[in-house]
């Protein structure tokens, strides 16, 4: 067990997997010589050479399509899209090729590939560089979509992603790269579709993922210390498949739920969670499920505007305050 950053966990995991399986290779802009815009691939070109760490021209749809082709033959490409924002250029290869080919062609060929990409806001990178479009991907059958919130999960889930025989969208968050956490040193995988009870509680469930899950945990811990409410935090980790069971069981216990998400509220991730809860735990709901999400604007650049648009701890606290049961916790 070592305390390492999210960045380092990703880097080490990539190194592990490149070492373990000669069919794994990396592809993306600036990942080789430059070692990645966010240095996730540091040292890997030197160690594995240019056949295993392929620098590409600026052509997102092109190199995602290349990954599909390589995956069809049985290689395991791990693509880095410099930031989540540029994945939008590759939607066709993801939707119509990566996600569908196994089904459309009657199982002729699996597409074992991973697209890793960092998204999220809060860095004053403005509207085209601060996006959270996970709902686009989570909607698509044939894809797995995951978004870990801490270094240990990042390691286990990236291993699962690379070893999985289907296309995986692996969403990172710029704001998490420097986050540290204990990461077991041995080889381990974390199955997709298993949410984690990041923290148990009895008054209310906060359901989240990625950076907001780590924020939710902080907020819950603070409320515990302040002797206010006992908040249960469900860290989804995987958006498709979605672990309905863990969500529903938690809400059955607490009777109240908040979805805390960094994306736009309308037609966002929280919509599916709230819809699922009311479907499967209706008789256990003591109040409507709340969604705490970003203001629906392209994320602005200047700090006062960005702060006004982004959701965060304050918004979550307000929602908890409104939703939590009126009694003091035991």
């Amino acid at each position, binding site marked *: 067990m070592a305390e390492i950053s999210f960045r380092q966990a990703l880097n080490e995991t990539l190194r592990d997997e490149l070492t373990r399986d000669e069919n794994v290779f990396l592809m993306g802009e600036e990942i080789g010589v430059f070692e990645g815009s966010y240095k996730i691939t540091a040292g890997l070109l030197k160690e594995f050479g240019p056949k295993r760490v392929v620098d590409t021209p600026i052509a997102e749809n092109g190199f995602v*399509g*290349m990954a599909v082709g*390589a995956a*069809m033959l049985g290689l395991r490409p791990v693509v880095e899209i410099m930031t989540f924002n540029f994945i939008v250029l590759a939607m066709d290869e993801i939707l*119509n090729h990566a996600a569908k080919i196994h089904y459309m*062609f*009657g199982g002729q*060929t699996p597409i*074992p590939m991973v697209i890793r990409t960092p998204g999220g806001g809060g860095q004053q990178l403005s509207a085209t560089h601060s996006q959270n479009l996970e709902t686009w991907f989570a909607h698509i059958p044939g894809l797995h979509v995951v978004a870990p919130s801490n270094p240990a999960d990042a390691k286990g889930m990236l291993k699962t992603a690379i070893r999985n025989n289907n296309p995986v969208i692996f969403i990172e968050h710029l704001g998490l790269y420097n986050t540290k956490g204990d990461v077991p040193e041995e080889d381990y995988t974390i199955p997709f579709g298993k949410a984690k009870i990041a923290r148990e509680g009895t008054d209310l469930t906060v359901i989240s993922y990625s950076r907001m899950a780590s924020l939710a945990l902080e907020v819950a811990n603070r409320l515990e210390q302040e002797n206010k409410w006992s908040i249960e935090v469900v860290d989804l980790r995987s958006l498709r498949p979605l672990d309905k069971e863990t969500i529903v069981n938690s809400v059955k216990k607490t009777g109240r739920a908040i979805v805390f998400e960094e994306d736009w509220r309308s037609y966002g991730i929280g919509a599916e969670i709230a819809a699922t809860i009311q479907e499967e735990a209706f008789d256990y709901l003591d109040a409507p499920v709340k969604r705490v999400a970003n203001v629906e604007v392209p994320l602005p650049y200047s700090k006062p505007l960005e702060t006004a648009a982004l959701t965060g701890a304050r918004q979550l606290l307000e929602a908890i305050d409104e939703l939590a049961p009126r009694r003091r916790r035991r």
Partner: protein
Amino acid sequence: MELERATLLQTYRFMCLTRALEDRIRTLFLQGRIAGGVYTARGHEATTVGAAMMLRDGDCIVPQHRDLGMHLVRGVSPRSILCQWLARGNSPTLGRDGQMHIGDMHHGIVPMISMLGESLPVACGVALTMKMKHRSTVVLAACGDGATNTGSFHEALNFASVQKLPLVLVIENNGYAYSTPAARQFAIQNLSERALAYGMPGESVDGNDVLAVMEALERALVHARSGQGPALVECKTFRVRGHSESDQADYVPPELRAEWLKKDPLQRFEAYLMQEDILTTTSRTEMMAQIQAEVDDAVSYAEQSPAPDGATVSHYVYAPDGPIAVVGEPEADNPHYV
């Protein structure tokens, strides 16, 4: 280039089989037994068959919608093809897709996706795999004149050239993309000029002359196989039918069509083979009878095959866990991979 008599005869046979199969598919469509659209290689046969004939074991193809002929050459049976068109449960796609969306990973045929141009990056990925695995195989990708205008065409060819990938692209320039004539698609005369933008060799040939196609392909394949990178061949041909069998193609000037009909690739090749005494009237009649029998057999086989079971609709969305053998490697479960 010296081609053996047997190769020439086989080439001719595949061209005829392509036409006979497509004619039958067209009839089935007109009889309402096929849903969707029927796109044929009528007039293109020299290009699609000629190009595929030049491949070797282990090569892959990345075909487009008028490349039934390539599938035949690479070993997909007429029975499989008819099962596909009639959407049977035992079709290559298990009824999940239809028409030309066949694919056959056992024969190195990358499944065709409709989005034009988008299969070219995929072809590069296949070629990259061959390069990584130090094989001397190549990828033959095909696209129409229309598809050369897509962004993916550009991203793929540029990439292939930078990475020196073993890729040959055949552009089947049939004068039209749907109803749009060449002149409203691009402002150049020869699509092989596009190769200049990537620093790769390109040439344009008469796509209705199967020998010319085969020779040009040979040059391109030698280049690609030798590790020098991709090559492009434009085959100038013509779509003598509508875009699909539902299209009357009134927008095509009748004189133009008439002119191209005179250049029919089958007739031309037949005349050559007869002149060279490779084919005789008798052997031709015999071959045609065999082909008809093969087509008849394929149709009745397909008709007797069961439709897929609706209850299986959710199968195959995700591939199961477990090790995957790399296509083309000895341990791969692909014995028929030519």
